[in-house]
Structure formats: C-alpha cells, structure tokens
C-alpha cells in the first residue's frame, strides 16, 4: 500500500485542502492500486478517468464540497449514468442507465469521483459474493494456517468490503437489505453503517426488497463513515419512502464520551453454535463501552429467533415482485426461442439471465404470495415483523444503544457454504432484526480471531439516532486499537 492509499477519507480530505498533496496524486495512487489488484475481482468495471476528473475539479478549486477530490468505489447496484450497472447479474450485462442514482449524484455533488463499480452478490442476494455472475470476490484476508485458502469477503457488498480492506478505495457505497453492509464489513475488518430506513434515497438503486433496502457507506473508520453518510443522505421527492428529516452533521457530533448512556445487551443473542471467541469479543466490547462511561442493561428482544424466517418470507416476496420487470423487453438480456411466443421469450430470458440463488428466491417469493398461501405466509410474516419492531421499541425505553456481535463467525472459505442455502442465511442472524425494524446499525472492527481474521461488533440505535450509533462505535474503535491490515499477496 502506498502512503496515500493507507490514509483515511478524513486524512485525504484534510491533506488535499492543505495542499500537502494534490487530489490528482490521490486519484492516481488509487487508480494504480485498483489496476494492480484485479486478482481480488473486487471491481467489475474500472473508471479511472472519472476519478481523475473529480480530482482535477478539486485541485482547480472548482469543487469544494466535503468530499472534493475523494475517489470512491460504487457498488454495482447504484445506477451510474452511461456507465455499466449490472447488479452482479447476467440479465443486466451491458445495461447503461440513462440516469444517475440520487445517492451517487449526492456524492458527486460533494465532490467525490468514482474509481469503478464494485462486484456484489447477484441482485444483492447472498452473504459471500459467490452468487455474482462475474465470479466471487476474493477477500484480501487469509487465515494464518498457511493454507492460503481463498476466503469470502462476505456479501452482498463483498466487492465494496474487499476494496476498502485492500486499500483500493478509501470509502465505498454499500447497500443493506438484511446485513449486506455489516456482515462484509465485519469479515474484512472495516466499518459500515446501515442508516435508518429512508435516510438514503432508494431512487436509482436496483431494487431487491423495497421495504428493507437501504444504502450506506463502508470505510476504514467511524469518522469516515460519518463523513460519507452525511453526503449520501437527504430528502428525495423521487423516493416515496424517503425521510423528510434534517440531516445532522454526524462528523461534528462525534464524541466517544458515553457518560450516562445505557447499553442494552439482548439475552436472546446468546445463541448456540457461535464460537467462544465471538462471545468473548462481545464481552470485551461491553467492557470498552463501560470504560467510555456507559452503563450496561440486560434487555430482551423476545422475537429474535423469528427474525430470519420472517425475513426469508418478506424479502423473497418483495424480490419476486420487483424482479418481474426483467422480461427481455425494455432493457437487459433477451433470449428468443425459435418460433417462440412472447411468454416463451419471458421464460427463456429469465431462465438464462438469473442465477440459481435469485431463481430460488423468486420461487419462494412467488410461492408465499400465491393464491391460498398469501395470508399463511406473507401476512403472518408482516405481523411478526410488527412484533419485532415492537420488541426494539420496548428495549429502547430501557437503553440508548444495543451491542451485539455482527456475524456468528469470521469469514469462511469460498465454496464452504454454497451447497446449503439455510446455513448461508444464518450468517445474517444478528443483522436481520435491525433491518426488519428499519433501525440504524453499524459494524465496527473489534479484533482478530485465532486464525488472524477480523471480527466485528454491532451497534443498533433507535430510529434516526445514527449519532448514538456512531458515538458508541467510536468508543469501541478507540479502545479496540484495531490496526491490523491484510498482508498484500495480490
């Protein structure tokens, strides 16, 4: 890693402003690092000229925004005008949106440039980046057993997480439907926050499950996430669920003094089969928060064990509806069987364009929404979702922020879990409840496991209290002293 590519966004921003180095030097350092890291398969498309153009604008004083001249990686779920946006799917190969997503437009307004589009699980459906039509992303991290086994960076924002961990982007966008920012952040030793549902506009983000999808930043530090989130959020009339709320200056509000704050520890998150190392880190995290002045409170979230099954009804149901648009007519792949009917074209197009996991979820979603089953599955899941949200509302009468592990394991090997969909789904057991309740939640690195792989701690706040989440994460970051980086092999 060159000196510039090991800096945080805050350091790059301040250095560019003070003219210690130029934005062009930053963009060039990242562009070469990106080109030299293709073995990781983190980027599906490189856009070095875009990064350079933003750098020129910053150096010439034309752009002065909070991210002036900062080059970022963009998850390939965000529509970028005239630039391939594939959602990790074959069905959108070569799709060039004639418009820009609100989130990336906001980042550009803040002065950021784009290094490229980041690989991801197809339509954000996966927890290991293995469902991408463009091949899995390889984590820059390796176990210290000498086996050099290729590990997953997690998913679905796997390219995003690997890029930050490998120093080939100082910050990236991710999206999180049921843990897709937080689990990969934990697997790769970086920070990532999913804000309150509605903070980031969903306009121009390829839809997966609209009642859950939220964009968020991933970066090396809590401060960097606060800077990026500030630039990404804001009311957008083009998204019917966009929150019309003032955007606080989260960076300015950062404080690791937690005096008087109550930290909830949900007893239902002690589940069987989670390695001792993860529970030990959880205990350590609580000690760090106590050291920062917080008071621990044992809380109960009684419907926790039903969160994953609820999610795996609601998310596929919404996905089956959202993905009905891929019909080979208006955009994307088209397969036309010889002498085929219109229906035959739909069926052949979708068979050829979607991968196995996406098909599986469309099938589940179609089943739970079909005549005769709708109430038994979908309406029931919406009711349990109401109970899960109510659990959190009650818990936040007793505490200000909740601490849990981010994921039930460290990164696993590529291929290890692909044959068992249910085992893969369990990766998001700690992340999904906050998604169902629309709450802000963040992963921050806590330490390494016995194999030298990163483990994350997870903070959940009440709705709209991103500041409380950031501040608790900052208190952990300061005390964990997590400086480990993946040793360069790529």
């Amino acid at each position: 890693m060159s000196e510039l590519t090991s800096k945080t966004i805050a350091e790059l921003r301040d250095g560019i402003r003070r003219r210690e180095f130029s934005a062009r030097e930053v963009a060039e350092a990242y562009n070469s690092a990106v080109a030299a890291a293709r073995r990781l398969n983190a980027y599906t498309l490189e856009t070095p000229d875009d990064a350079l153009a933003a750098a020129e604008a910053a150096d010439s004083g034309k752009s002065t925004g909070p991210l002036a001249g900062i080059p970022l990686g963009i998850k390939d779920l965000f529509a970028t005008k005239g630039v391939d946006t594939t959602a990790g799917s074959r069905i959108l190969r070569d799709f060039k949106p004639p418009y820009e997503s609100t989130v990336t437009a906001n980042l550009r307004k803040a002065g950021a440039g784009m290094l490229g589009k980041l690989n991801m699980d197809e339509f954000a459906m996966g927890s290991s980046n293995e469902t991408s039509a463009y091949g899995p992303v390889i984590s820059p991290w390796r176990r210290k057993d000498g086996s050099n086994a290729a590990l997953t960076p997690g998913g679905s924002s796997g390219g995003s997480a690997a890029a930050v961990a490998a120093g080939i982007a100082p910050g990236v966008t991710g999206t999180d439907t049921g843990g897709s920012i937080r689990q990969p952040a934990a697997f790769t030793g970086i920070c990532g926050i999913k804000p309150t549902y509605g903070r980031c506009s969903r306009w121009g983000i390829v839809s997966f499950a609209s009642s859950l999808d939220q964009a968020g930043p991933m970066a090396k530090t809590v401060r960097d996430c606060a800077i990026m989130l500030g630039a990404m959020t804001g009311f957008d009339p083009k998204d019917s669920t966009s929150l019309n709320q003032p955007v606080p200056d989260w960076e300015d509000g950062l404080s690791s003094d937690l005096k008087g704050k109550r930290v909830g520890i949900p007893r239902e998150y002690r589940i069987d089969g989670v390695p001792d190392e993860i529970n030990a880190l959880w205990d350590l995290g609580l000690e760090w928060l106590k050291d920062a002045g917080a008071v621990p409170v044992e809380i109960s979230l009684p419907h926790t064990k039903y969160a994953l099954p609820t999610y795996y009804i609601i998310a596929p149901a919404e996905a089956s509806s959202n993905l009905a648009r891929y019909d080979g007519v208006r955009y994307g792949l088209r397969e036309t069987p010889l002498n085929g009917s219109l229906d035959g074209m739909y069926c052949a197009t979708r068979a050829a364009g979607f991968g196995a996991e996406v098909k599986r979820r469309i099938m589940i979603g179609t089943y739970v929404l079909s005549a005769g089953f709708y109430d038994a599955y979908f309406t029931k899941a919406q009711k349990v979702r109401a109970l899960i949200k109510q659990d959190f509302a009650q818990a936040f009468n007793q505490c200000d922020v909740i601490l849990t592990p981010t994921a039930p394991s460290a990164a696993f090997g590529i291929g290890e879990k692909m044959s068992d969909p249910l085992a893969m789904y369990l990766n998001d057991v700690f992340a999904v409840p906050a998604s169902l309740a629309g709450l802000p939640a963040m992963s921050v690195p806590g330490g390494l496991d016995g194999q030298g792989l990163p483990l994350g701690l997870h903070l959940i706040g009440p709705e709209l209290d991103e500041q409380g989440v950031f501040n608790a994460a900052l208190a952990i970051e300061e005390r964990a002293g997590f400086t480990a980086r993946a040793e360069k092999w790529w």
Partner: protein
Amino acid sequence: MSVSPEQVRHIANLARIAMSDEEIERLVPELNAIIGWVEQLGEVNTDGIEPLTAVIDQKLRLREDQVTAGNIRGEVLANAPGAEHGFFAVPKVIE
C-alpha cells in the same frame, strides 16, 4: 406444508422462469427445506397484531399533478434489446 414437483412447475410458470425437469427435481427438496423452516412462524401468537406495512411511520406524500419529465424517448429505448420505429419490439403476439 410441502410442495410437489407439480406445484414447483406451477410456481416456475407463474414466475415465468423456464425450468428443466432436473431443475424442478432439485428445487423440490430445497424449497421444502426453506418452507419448512419459515413455518416456525406458526408458533408466534399474532392475534390482534396489525401487519406491518411501513417500517418507519410516515404518510405517503401527494405531489402536484404536473409533468416533471418526458420527451426522452431515445433514452427510454436506449437499452431495449429490440426497438423499432420508436417502440419496444417483441415477438409477434397475434397472427
């Protein structure tokens, strides 16, 4: 409840995904495992609970009934796999 190969074929047709018999056979146990697992929600007492439709409480906004975009036919058609004479083109539907 569990699904049969015939039901899976029916769902695939509803979802407009062409599937071979082998794919259907493979999906039957996979879908049954997932459906069996989600059915644990049956244990939860949800009497009197309203289904959650909006996770953050907010009213749907109304907007002025004004044209805010348009006259971009070229852009709309730019990504179409088949476009002719300014329209989306599809295989013949009527003889």
